[in-house]
């Protein structure tokens, strides 16, 4: 244990509050609900951090598992009166753990992959835009960048392709960066800040060199990170928009084909609670003729996490699935035909889970691209 206190007085107070709480947010924590374990609750996570901070009890594997298994969805904060901001506390704790030299190899897949491959998925960097190459023409020059993100580039290719097609249909000129690196979000969420800084610096340098003024992305994690974290690292001067906001700005000029189905929208944590974009996707979906838009038991600021955030999908796959299954159950309860999200990771995770078979899981960009009438 280090002799030096690592956290500010303000952070220590938040740790003290959360770890001594009467457990008021338990009924909402996705990992606590899915695991039924006290150890995977917000207050026990902060207790582990607090005890290490006070040099009472050093981190052991159990404490580290508790801390690294937080989805960083911050749903608990919605129900926290003093707003201790568990997500922030977990990110601070993880970063300090990584920095301190404690063996974190069990949780380091994402950070290492970003350092080696510039994406958290251990995919070859050179192949990053292969999936959309046929849609890109060399002549496209613009100060508007479509930032595809790692999930769009490697896993949810249909979202990346739909984003390109959609922006074209809306007559928005844009460019795609051949040498796009991870936005840094997975590294930030899991505490690997050096790797995050490296990838952020690369992107910023590239954008500046290419005269980029506006960044559009279909990924809610990229959106949140570029919009809220990048400015803390650089003299940032880019306009950042989630693609939903771009489409929403054209809402009066667009028409959709009918969709006679029950549709529910899952608020991604990064786009909802973190950046408060709740209405734009709903307004767009409502505009689709014949659609029946249903809300799940938990939505907007109370939305349940998909189960894949905070590195949990990579590091604790069983827990990640268990949380996702709870969310899919909410979809089934309202008999929705479509589960729509606005985050490639949410969609990718949902697709991986068992459902009753008839449920169609799509990103909002894909749905809109399918239904848009030019």
């Amino acid at each position, binding site marked *: 244990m280090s002799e030096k206190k690592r956290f500010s007085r303000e952070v220590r*107070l938040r740790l003290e*509050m959360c770890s*001594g709480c*009467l457990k*008021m947010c338990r009924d909402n924590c996705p990992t606590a609900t899915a695991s039924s374990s006290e*150890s995977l609750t917000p207050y026990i996570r902060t207790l582990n951090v607090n005890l290490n901070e006070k040099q009472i009890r050093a981190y052991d594997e159990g404490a580290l598992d508790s801390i690294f298994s937080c989805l960083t969805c911050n749903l608990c904060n919605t129900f926290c009166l*003093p707003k201790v901001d568990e997500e922030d506390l977990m990110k601070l704790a993880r970063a300090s753990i990584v920095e301190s030299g404690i063996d974190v190899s069990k949780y380091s897949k994402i950070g290492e992959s970003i350092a080696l491959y510039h994406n958290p998925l251990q995919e070859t960097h050179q192949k990053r835009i292969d999936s959309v190459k046929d849609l890109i023409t060399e002549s496209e020059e613009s100060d508007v960048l479509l930032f595809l993100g790692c999930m769009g580039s490697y896993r949810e290719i249909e979202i990346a392709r739909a984003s390109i097609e959609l922006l074209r249909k809306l007559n928005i000129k844009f460019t795609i960066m051949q040498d796009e690196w991870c936005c840094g979000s997975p590294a930030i969420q899991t505490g690997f800040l050096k790797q995050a800084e490296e990838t952020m610096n690369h992107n910023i340098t590239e954008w500046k060199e290419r005269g980029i003024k506006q960044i559009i992305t279909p990924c809610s994690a990229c959106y949140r990170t570029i919009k809220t974290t990048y400015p803390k690292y650089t003299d940032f001067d880019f306009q950042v928009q989630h693609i939903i906001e771009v489409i929403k700005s054209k809402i009066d000029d667009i028409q959709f084909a009918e969709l006679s189905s029950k549709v529910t929208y899952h608020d991604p944590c990064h786009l909802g609670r973190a950046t408060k974009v709740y209405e734009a996707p709903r307004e767009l979906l409502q505009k689709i003729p014949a659609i029946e838009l249903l809300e799940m038991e938990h939505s907007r600021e109370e939305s349940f996490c998909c189960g894949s955030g905070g590195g949990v999908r990579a590091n604790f796959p069983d827990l990640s699935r268990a949380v996702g299954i709870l969310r899919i159950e909410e979809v089934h309860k309202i008999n929705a035909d479509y589960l729509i999200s606005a985050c490639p990771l949410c969609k990718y995770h949902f697709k991986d889970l068992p459902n009753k078979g008839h449920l169609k899981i799509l990103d909002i960009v894909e749905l809109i691209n399918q239904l848009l009438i030019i």
Partner: protein
Amino acid sequence: MVKNEEIYRELESIVGLQNISTRDADRIAYGRDAFSLKIMQYRLPSILKQPLPDYIIWVESLEQISRILKLANEKKVPVIPYGGGAGVNGGIVPLTGGISLDLKKLKRIELHEEANYVLCQAGVIGQHLENFLNKKGYTLGHLPSSLTTSSIGGFIATRSAGALSSLYGSIENMVLDLEVVLPSGQVVHTNPSRVPRKATGPNFNELFIGSEGTYGIIADACLKIRRNPDIREFAGFLFPTLTAGLQAIRKIMNLGIRPSIIRLYEAVEARMVYHIEDIEKDQSYLTLSFDGYEETKEFVEDQKKICTRLCLKAGAKDMGDEGGKIWFKNRLNMYYPNPDWIKMSVLADTIDVVTTYDNLENLFYKMKEAVQSKKVNVMAHWSHFYLEGGSMYLIFVMLEKDTEKDPKASNLYKEIWAKGLKACIENGGSISHHHGIGIFRGEYMEQELGPGIYDLLKGIKNYLDPNGIMNPGKLGL
């Protein structure tokens, strides 16, 4: 470190590797509930000296509970049932180690609408059951302050009461049947026909309600439900004295009116809760609420009118409905950690006691006198009313730092509890209305129950649990 490899292996063979832990971090997580002393100890190096379970087990079926209890009996290992860990008396603290048996994976809910009951497994969190019922138009009517964090099994095992108890009753009034695993591993039902009442000897629900895990493990409950009210009307009154407020409540109950919320505050707490800055020290503040349905709207209005008339006649000032509405909306807020209190090392706790109307005021003054000092402030409110009396929440707030070498705060805290409980018993009160017994109150159980009944409590324990494996050290056993 595994305490006993053989026991570990046998437990693992029952629940599987994914449902057992002996890791220190998990053991620490299961050593604490919402007991103020425990929370204080968990802030300090003293956490390392706290009793912890040796094994954490998550059970997924009734059969697993039964097999574990048989094994625990054979090996003489203590078993502590664990629900939400939200009790305020250390009820789940494993005083002699053993197995902390987490029941939260037992979360099935089954609505029987036509019979007005719900089958609910012990591990369901109270708020989750209430959400489920509300969606179907029903309520359990049980809204304790720990609703978001405690479990159905915990409500029953601690004999809990909620904010609306004056109308809907406490948990014992909601239980139709319990499925209990006895320490021998045998599974029994306390009222298998789930009938509302019967004259077939003693009511065996009552044997397990409030047994705090000492008589067996409550695995499943059949609970009465009711239509969720459409209307909740509030009223607030400022009385010239505490006596006038308490007398008004008795008169309301005598008229057969049952407000869902009845809360009377003495001046110190009223000032804090309702922000009535100019309240005088003898005055008291009463909040009432009246529940009903669209179809019974007039009935609700009439009850409110009658109570208003009665209170005004008793010299009260009508304070309108805003105070009650705000209180109900924010009723859980005071249970969240307060940054200013943490900075100042404030420790607060509640001694919930109960007595008859003729003694409620006297008991307050006697307990206040016993507990209050230069270092300890006292306030109180009265709630959970019956035809004969009600409960009193004596809240004490102390300012004292604690250190490992000089545990001033924990000593003072224990001293306050001892003085408060002693004064309660000496002045005709009962030592717990709904928080239960847990650790501190155990030593007063013989006095509380009287020698004959205390012997019966122990005798039943010896019959059901001859090896004393079930939650040792609780309920005065």
